[in-house]
């Protein structure tokens, strides 16, 4: 239960820092997560999931304020991709940032321990 609560806090941290400061906070938060959580708990996967969920929530909030699906379609047209692929690309971008940053800091922490 506590683990889940921590993970929810991580999701909230991703949401808050992205909204207030920008995309580049994702690897910082994930890096901090990697340092905090024991290596044995594979923090890179929880960071990946939390970042993806956080950005999904942010996209859903954006969708409440405007036509996200149409925008995805327009963007898809620009990049010669289907609209949903642009949404997936967005989530994958955040997930990869979080996964790699958490994986790196976690491994470094373990190595230095």
């Amino acid at each position, binding site marked *: 239960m506590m683990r889940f609560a921590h993970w929810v806090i991580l999701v909230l941290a991703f949401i808050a820092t992205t909204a207030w400061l920008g995309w580049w906070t994702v690897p910082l938060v994930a890096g901090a997560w990697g340092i905090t959580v024991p290596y044995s708990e594979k923090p890179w996967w929880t960071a990946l999931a939390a970042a993806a969920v956080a950005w999904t929530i942010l996209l859903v909030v954006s969708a409440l304020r405007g036509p996200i699906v149409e925008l995805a379609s*327009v963007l898809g047209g*620009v990049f010669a991709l289907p609209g949903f692929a642009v949404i997936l690309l967005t989530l994958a971008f955040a997930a*990869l*940032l979080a996964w*790699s940053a958490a994986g790196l800091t976690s491994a470094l922490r373990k190595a230095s321990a």
Partner: protein
Amino acid sequence: MQRQRIVRAVLSAVILAIVLHAGARRTGPMPPLGPLLDPVNGVWAVAAGAESPDREAFDIPGLAAPVQIVFDDRGVPHIFASSSEDAARALGYVVARDRLFQMEMRWRTAAGRLAELAGEDAVGFDRRMRRLGLAWSAERDFAALDPASAAVREVSAYAEGVNAWIDQLDRRDVPFEFRLLGAEPSRWEPVFSLYLLKLMGWDLTYGLASDLRRLRAQAMVGKQATDALAPVNSPIQQPIQANGQTSHRFDISRIPPPGRPDLAARERVSEIEVALGLLPDDRAGEPEPTVLGSNNWAVAPERTAAGYALLAGDPHLGLSLPSTWYEAHLVVPGVLDVYGVTFPSVPSIVIGFNRDIAWSFTNTGADVIDYYEEEFDDPNRPTRYRVDGEWRELARRVEAYRDRGGAVLAVDTFLVTHRGPVVTHEDRPLSMRWIVLEGSGSTDALWKAARAASVEEYLAAMEGFAAPAQNMIVADRSGTIAIRSNGYFPLHPDGLGLEVRDGRTSSSDWVGFWPLSRYPFSIDPDQGYLASANQQPIAPRVDPTYLGADWLSPWRAIRINALLAADSAVTPDAMRRFQTDPVNARAEIFVPFFSEAVDRLAQDSEATDAAREAARLLAEWDLRYTKQNERAVLFEYAMNELATRTWDELLAEREVGPARRVYTPASAVLASLLHQPESIWWDDRRTPEVEDRDAILIASLMAGLERARREHGEPNEGGWRWAGIRHANIYHLLGLPSLSALDLPVQGGPGNLNPSSGGGTHGASWRMVVELGPEVRAWSIYPGGQSGNPVSPRYRDRIEKWVTGELDPVRFPLTAADLDSSAVSSVLELNPER
């Protein structure tokens, strides 16, 4: 385990580095992905700006008093201000809110500074624009204006309004295109408004291209033939200045046979094209480019059903999304109450109406440019040029091209003579005098015109409008209608403006300008209507003074004059229908010649079955270009074949690919050649036979049928429908298909009042009908929408009606309270910043 951790650390570091790099740095054409994909501050935030809140209020600097802006149900801002400057400030604010990227593109295009937005690939284009000196001349004009003048105050206030929007710009409000390019909006300078007027001058001055086209024809068939193929006076006369004729008149002169190639002309073309960019070839198999253009007309009260003057205008320009125009209503009680369209960048209504008058423009196409061959003291490092045996200093402009980050990519030094910029100086230096680069007076004229209360006041206001010269039609509530071809028209020393002149003598310089009293002009003519469609403004029998030589084909003028002459009780709805009238005057002239040629052959029993079938199919045509029409395509293909076969002397063979068509004489010239059936021009030199007119007409008709069958199937299977053949294509400013409106079926073909041709990228950029009764009523449409946000419902909401030729009724309230709440989409209050 240890090894696994090392592998994990390395793998994570590598992936993190890659993703961070893609997130923070540009990769090829891709912008940095981080700022782009950020779900809050990135491109996704654009969705939140798709619709405006019902009510907003902002404080902006510079305002003298609060301004109320009511957006109606078509997204048109009705700006209620207490001073002209505040109205301009508010207009700048709302136009920037809706069209900021378009404004950025426009000023950068004019200034030759696209590389700073789009990167090094744009340097070539930038170089050509800077060589023309549009921004340089705009800055010179602006510096010469009286800073205390009303026009300058308005331009400055407009800039403050734009910057007020930019200053408030949240990262979430940055337009979509800036995000794609990974760029930020620039601060708006007042002079940028003048850039736009210069850019329009460039767009509408045919001289740059037409002199070159003429020279290219001369390179192939000699000067004498070129003078006949590209005549100074239109071979079909239906001038803008009413001349008492009720229909058009052929002024036919014999076209001499093709002469020898002119090698000097060929060399000159090559030099100019190196300097100013390659002139595109006419497309073989397409109509000549002069069938496209703008229309305007006005009808006097005695010929309208309601007894009020009517005015219609539909300027045709390159189509784009966002649209060229922005629709707005500016109200300053007791001072200004004007409605119409403005270019995003310009603080005035350019085409529109107020409570007393309405006006619209078509391009005059006068010859306002000349080239001069100069002599430099040193071809490699010139500092002086010779005039009348004396050396004069060359002025210099040193300009740097920068990339996105501000790094210098290249530096050019541009030379300027007393005539204007030197456009090429490698072997034979060439300078250019172009009226667009000289003081335009346009800003001040537009400012005054919006406040005019009668035709007389409007014409007085526009006296100072120098460039680009326009056929300005105007009507007022008293029932007066008038038209004047208005701009600064140079008087050339030899009475013509077609040759590259000898710059070594001042006797080559312009000797003055047309006096206003001689401008082509009509007011309240007996015929009860006036019209222009870019045709020759004044009949050479009335005034033979050289005004230009690039008059667009007269087909649209012939048709609108016929429609207006035939209707003595014109209604606003008829005016609307005329704007997309499907009948084609060009077809009315050519179709009988095709049919009679086959008939004559049939009398000799030589007509083949194919020729008879083609003639039968053409005879089924009602000469209309409706979307459902299934015969217009046959005529078009036959006409294209006719041009290709008749003007084969103007096809330049290439080592690879089809021959280039370097010049296409106007279809009016071809129409006059129809009256010279034995002319050698009819012969297609690519065949062993020597053909005459009828033989080429028949061969063209049969080839047209063959092409129609090949490309669209049998005549009655549906494939020949015009809707499936000719389309309008409205591209986004960056050419992105997903942001464009493509393959739009349209009513109209080459030479129609709603002309379509080629790639479908030109068309009616704005359609307006105004009835000047006790209460002014108006209807309008343009192809696009008010918003530049591609996911806004107002990005392209007007296109459907534009395609069908419908117009929206315009709301023209006296006060904000006069707008019914159901007609209000949102309200914006701008207050003075404390």
